[in-house]
């Protein structure tokens, strides 16, 4: 895959489990999560993670789904789309994935995915996506009990962070680290509006603020916004963060500080594919059910 040089880009990548032979599996299931910024295709064999891809969403869902799935299949020892028994689509593009047999909302999928990634003790999930912030409460099975979503205004979402990355010429992946390279935490920027936030950042730079300080102020504002939403629903342990922003420690650490609670971490799985994992797990269960009912 060609890598673009834009600062706003997340890394695009794919992965296949070493030492797994999909031919021995009884069920190969797949989840495709089409978000506003990125698309993930996740393939699981008998409920274990087998392969996935993570790439930028194109301007059309069927295409994005197709590309993400093909890429996920690229290095899988001959596994093809025909070998996948069930596909569930999720994310805002879910209704437009031709190869998916069923669409389930990203809220349900993220909860189930987080349950898989972080274990059954997760009760509160924060998912910061490109344009949505979701707070989800779930039970020990990863079933959603309650949730909240931001509305109408995309302040505090991943997209805002992208704009900032472009503006300041700091690669997204470095923003978190850089935002802590300040002597003292500055006041948060007053506008998290994606457009006005940008001009506010500019005027701070013109005032002589360092890039790091501006980033700190922006990350703090974003964290404030998100924490307001979380507190409306209430936090229950354990607390997990999924989605692209889970990798932005500039925001994550500030959220943890404001809430005075640490989010569970894992090295084992990529939290950005939680939605896709959830969808693939649903796909597996749905296939089993259809097999039982002979359908």
């Amino acid at each position, binding site marked *: 895959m060609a890598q673009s040089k834009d600062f706003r880009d997340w890394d695009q990548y794919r992965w296949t489990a070493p030492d797994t032979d999909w031919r021995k599996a009884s069920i190969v299931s797949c989840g495709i999560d089409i978000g*506003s910024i990125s698309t993930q295709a996740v393939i699981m064999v008998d409920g274990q993670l087998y392969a996935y891809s993570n790439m930028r969403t194109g*301007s*059309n*869902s*069927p295409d994005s789904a197709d590309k993400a799935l093909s890429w996920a299949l690229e290095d899988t020892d001959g596994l093809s789309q025909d070998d996948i028994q069930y596909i569930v689509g999720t994310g*805002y*593009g879910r209704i*437009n994935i031709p190869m998916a047999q069923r669409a389930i909302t990203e809220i349900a999928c993220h909860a189930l995915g987080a349950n898989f990634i972080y274990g059954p003790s997760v009760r509160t999930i924060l998912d910061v996506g*490109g*344009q949505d912030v979701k707070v989800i409460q779930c039970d020990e099975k990863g079933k959603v009990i309650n949730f909240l979503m931001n509305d*109408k*205004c*995309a302040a505090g*979402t991943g*997209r*805002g962070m992208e704009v900032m990355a472009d503006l300041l010429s700091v690669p997204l992946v470095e923003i978190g680290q850089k935002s802590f390279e300040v002597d003292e935490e500055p006041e948060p920027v007053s*506008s998290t*509006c*994606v*457009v*006005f936030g940008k*001009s506010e950042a*500019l005027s701070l*730079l*013109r005032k002589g603020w360092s890039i790091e300080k501006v980033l700190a102020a922006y990350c703090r504002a974003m964290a404030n916004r998100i924490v307001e939403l979380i507190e409306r629903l209430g936090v229950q342990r354990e607390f997990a963060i999924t989605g692209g922003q889970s990798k932005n420690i500039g925001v994550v650490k500030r959220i943890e500080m404001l809430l005075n609670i640490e989010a569970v971490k894992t090295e084992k799985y990529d939290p950005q594919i939680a939605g896709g994992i959830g969808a693939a797990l649903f796909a597996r269960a749905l296939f089993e059910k259809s097999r039982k009912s002979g359908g």
Partner: protein
Amino acid sequence: MANIGIDIGSQNTKVAILEDRKILALAKVPTGFDQQVSVKKAIKLGLDKAGIGMPDSAQIRVTGIGRKAVPDISTNEINETMSAAKGAFFYFPSARVVIDAGAENVTVMKVNEQMRVLDFATNDKCAAGAGSFVESMTKALGTTIDDFAKSALQRTEKININAQCVIFAESEVVSLVHSGASRADISGAIHEAIADRISALVRRVGLEKDVVVMGGMANNVGFIDALEKALDVNVLVATDPEYACAIGAAL
């Protein structure tokens, strides 16, 4: 004796060099981090274009949201609404409503025949009615602003864009593409949404003839068409609408 007018906007810094109400040169540079530098660059560019050197005791008047940032360069400052009114009158002395629509900020003014600004309204807190809205949509659709704007005129079916926020509108546009809506119809809907927001500001100050549009958005034919429909009047567009405020400052 040449007069220099500078308009420091959120995206571009524009300069106009005039002599006896005659335009010698217009130029723009991106407004970078350091406004001092951009203003100096813009002036140099303008003087080069005009083919003159820096006049000895030049009047340098600055306007725009960055006008306070360059006290060392400016000999005088003039507020945004006044420079806009002067710029509008330069082209159209019949102007009674002036719309200055830039990348992020929109100001609508009501002026009288003496060029006095009687009332004005601005877009507070949300940039949904401004140029950067179109820019984002253009990016989302992978096209150019010019083509996108023109395509609005080919609109055949009416669709509504509900989202006010640039970001949400982007995804609404993407889902419209998926549902098979034509680019012309989407473009029409977006320009209509912007025109609705701006015409609401016009209604606040009161609609009167003639309406003059300036600022970067005035170059957008899709927007002008939608605005005319929303206000039900013919609007007048300055020849170099992006520079109208800088010209106003120079005058």
